[in-house]
């Protein structure tokens, strides 16, 4: 356990050294600049659009970190040959993989938490500067606590993507890993189309394969409650719980597969 914590701590420190914080500064600047511009452009939809922008930016920045840092977790150590020094210590290959994953997972969760706080600060500005009458037009209050649900599921989605990236990087090249991780992300968001492909294709075989892919791949659409939260549509605790549970099973599956593949990998 201690070995995993040490590896995870190393990843977290590395991520700070690699200036992930720049992404956060960029996020905060985009939000602030947008908040001043939008009031002029959007016919009174500024709070909705700030929420949309904050959630989307958090998701996009997190996705970049999850894909590129997730793939670099193993490949960098192998390319730099620093893996030999690591594995010479009392750290098993499985501990190495799990530690690497947890380190980036903590980084991502901290990122999402900081972005959540930044969005609330900008929304607080709108809450305080908007006259009472205009607030009645808002579907949900500016400082709606339900936004945390959307951020929480964004974090869960990023943890799934990180696990996919890590798994793929244990056996394929960085370029192919990026392409395949992005493909998983896209397929994960095409769930409904895959499930109902029989509506648009005549081939029953193809429709059956698509339905199979739908059930095998993680359904990322289920983790997307951004629109619901912004429009004050209730997101139940059961939805949160079961979506997170399903995602965590995928993470466990991918980590187990990663440790198995990495255990057999010839590092010489």
């Amino acid at each position, binding site marked *: 356990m201690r070995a995993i914590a040490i590896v995870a701590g190393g990843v977290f420190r590395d991520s700070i050294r690699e200036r992930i914080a720049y992404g956060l500064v960029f996020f905060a600047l985009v939000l602030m600049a947008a908040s001043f511009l939008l009031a002029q452009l959007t*016919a009174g939809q500024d709070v909705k*659009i700030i929420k949309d922008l904050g959630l989307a930016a958090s998701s996009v920045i997190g996705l970049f970190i999850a894909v590129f840092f997730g793939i670099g977790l193993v490949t960098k150590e192998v390319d730099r040959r620093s893996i030999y020094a690591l594995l010479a210590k009392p750290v098993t290959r499985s501990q190495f993989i799990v530690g690497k994953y947890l380190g980036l997972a903590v980084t991502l969760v901290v990122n999402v938490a900081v972005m959540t706080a930044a969005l609330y600060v900008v929304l607080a500005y709108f809450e305080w500067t908007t006259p009472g009458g*205009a607030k009645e037009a808002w579907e949900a209050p500016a400082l709606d606590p339900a936004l945390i649900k959307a951020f929480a599921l964004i974090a869960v989605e990023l943890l799934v993507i990180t696990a996919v990236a890590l798994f793929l990087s244990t056996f394929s090249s960085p370029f192919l890993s990026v392409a395949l991780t992005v493909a998983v992300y896209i397929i994960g968001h095409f769930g409904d189309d895959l499930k109902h492909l029989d509506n648009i294709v005549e081939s029953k075989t193809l429709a059956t394969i698509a339905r199979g892919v739908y059930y095998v791949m993680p359904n990322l659409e289920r983790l997307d409650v951004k629109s619901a939260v912004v429009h004050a549509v209730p997101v139940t605790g059961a939805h949160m719980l079961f979506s997170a549970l399903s995602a965590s099973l995928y993470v466990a599956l991918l980590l187990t597969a990663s440790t198995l593949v990495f255990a057999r990998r010839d590092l010489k």
Partner: protein
Amino acid sequence: MAARWMALIVLALSAVATQVALEGRIATPTASATVPWVQSPPLMRRLTLGWNTIWADVYWIRAVQYFGGTRLSRNAEKNYDRLYPLLDITTTLDPRFNIAYRLGAILLAEGYPNGAGNTDQAIALLEKGMRAMPEKWQYPHDAGFIVYWWRRDPATAARWFLQAEKVPGAPNWLRPVAASMLTQGGSRETARELWLELARNGEHEWLQRAGRRGLMQLDAEAQIDVLQRIVEQFQTHAGRLPTSWDEVVAAGLLRQPPVDPAGSGYTLDPASGTVDVATSSPLYPLRQKGSGG
């Protein structure tokens, strides 16, 4: 090292200076800014991969900018053709985008050239909203209003108001309005009540502004009725139509040339004696008497 810094500064300044120098001198071949890159709303929804709401916001901003730009343009042939596709994509990407349906329908229905003058598209947008959010009584209400105000079809409008009244939580004044439409064919008083409701309780400042404008248009309609009678009076006395308001003032029938509630002077057609709001007035155009959509 100092030389490199110097080179960096010189290159940066040269690059910017070249851009500035070329500005306006070389035409850049570009596609029309008004053409949406993707015209199929379902395809657009798939391409956005979970970021559909932020793209809906982008399209909403484009729709508002497009409408504003077209409305304010000095082009005699204003073309609002892209407004409905932009609103269609917006509401497909974010089917719960309330203001896009309500304000979008107002912009589509507004009489040409200050609006698209297309009540069919306005109703189609609201019907899409009804499918996405059947709990919103405002959409059938707005459809009824548009049919009544722009198409002057009180019977169809009454049906929409009755449909709105059936939605749980709908206000109780919808049924009397529908009854008034059916019995009185939609009097000016009924229209005033509807505009007043929008001006007071519209969900957003833009809707309230539309309500206040509608009330001013109603006042203008009433004033035009009076002015029309004054013009007829002039004709009876003088045996001819007046050529300008000055003649009517000189005849003692008015104290000064009349202005509409928005502050623009009324026009008087010397050939037919028809009084109307000026095309430059914010109230232009008034609904056409007995016209369809």
